[in-house]
């Protein structure tokens, strides 16, 4: 197999990894809701990816491949931790909160609201929500990452969004008109 010849105009897995770190970390933070845990997870995923570099098909999506590795490690971690019970720790949860000054078009209260609501979603709903709405994967790619059929992606994703709407208590239809100029400082 003449692998080296094919790599010339294509980046290798280790090279891509470094550039992809910010995305990977963002996904990790939204999965585990703690930066500290997320960083460990990202590190472990990178180690795994380098070991498994040969299994990455160069014409497939690198982001989906990495998300899948990271997410599998997270699932392993959760399995080992199962006895520890749910970790709906508020301090931990705040790890995900939004840096101020971002997304100025939305009132910050709303964002905090959304962030808090996201924490309350079941893991399986949050992960699919993040993959599609934040990382902008297609249903098809999200299905690959999660190893589930597309139909399941869609039903979970729809449930996640309806739950989110309920949890935020925002009546989406009315919101636009009611807090047009909220003046939150």
């Amino acid at each position, binding site marked *: 197999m003449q692998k080296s010849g094919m790599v010339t105009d294509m980046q290798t897995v280790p090279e891509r990894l*470094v550039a992809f770190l910010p995305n990977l970390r*963002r996904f990790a933070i939204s999965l585990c809701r703690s930066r500290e845990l997320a960083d460990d997870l990202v590190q472990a995923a990178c180690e795994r990816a*380098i070991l498994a570099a040969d299994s990455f098909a160069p014409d497939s999506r690198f982001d989906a491949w990495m998300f899948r590795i990271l997410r599998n490690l997270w699932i392993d971690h959760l399995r080992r931790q199962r006895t520890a019970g749910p970790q709906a720790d508020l301090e931990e949860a705040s790890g995900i909160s939004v840096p101020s000054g971002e*997304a100025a078009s939305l009132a910050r209260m709303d964002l905090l609201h959304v962030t808090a609501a996201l924490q309350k979603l079941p893991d399986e709903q949050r992960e699919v929500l*993040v993959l599609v709405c934040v990382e902008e994967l297609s249903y098809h790619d999200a299905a690959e990452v999660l190893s589930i059929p597309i139909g399941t992606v869609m039903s979970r994703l729809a449930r996640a969004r309806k739950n989110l709407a309920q949890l935020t208590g925002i009546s989406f239809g009315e919101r636009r008109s009611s807090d047009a100029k909220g003046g939150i400082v």
Partner: protein
Amino acid sequence: MTRYDFDDETLMAFADGELDEATSVRLETALAADEALAERLAVFLESRMLVASALKPLIDEPLPEALLTSVRRMAEEAQGRQSEASNVVALRPRQRQVKRWAKHRWVMPLAAGIVLVVTGVVGFTVGLNLNPSVMNSSAEVAGVLDREASGRDIALGFGEMLHIIATFRDKNGSLCREYELKQPSGSTLSIACRHDQAWVTQLALTSVKAEGYVPASSQETIDAYLSSIQAGTPLSAEEERAALAP
């Protein structure tokens, strides 16, 4: 037609741009006349927007230094291992590579001890325009080659970084080191062997690429060169330590 024609998944797929065209057209028509349907759709449109606004900014957070350093090192080691592995595994196939590369006749020792690569290597500046900073820093490089272990990144002056890839002995038993000098302008992959306490550069490949790694084709050149001098397998950490001891 009632609103129940469109279930949540269909509305959501429309909001996400994943609905087939025929159904999309049908839905758009229905939306015009059905306020409740429009509100159901709004849940999916706005939830996507809200989640994106809440989480996307996380990508702008600076990466923790420790994480970045660790992954960078991991990635570089992996690249290094790749080349080492090809050196080790390809010991015999190397003989064949030599023939393949022999037609390029790229080894031409110069007075300065710099050996130049001539043709056939994509992505490299032919070494004829010697990079002056390679020359300037040679004393500093020699010092590093004398003492530092392989696998480390050593910062030199002027934003240069020296990464020693491996240590081995050539057929005469001279100690040789393969290393990469990374500069803001590009990087140079070199092999130097020690003769009479001085490091003599045997081969230098300058990549014009400002960052990243030397392309695989340079590795082939290096491999071909290594086999032409009948380089032994890279020394282990212990062997290397012993060989470098003053």
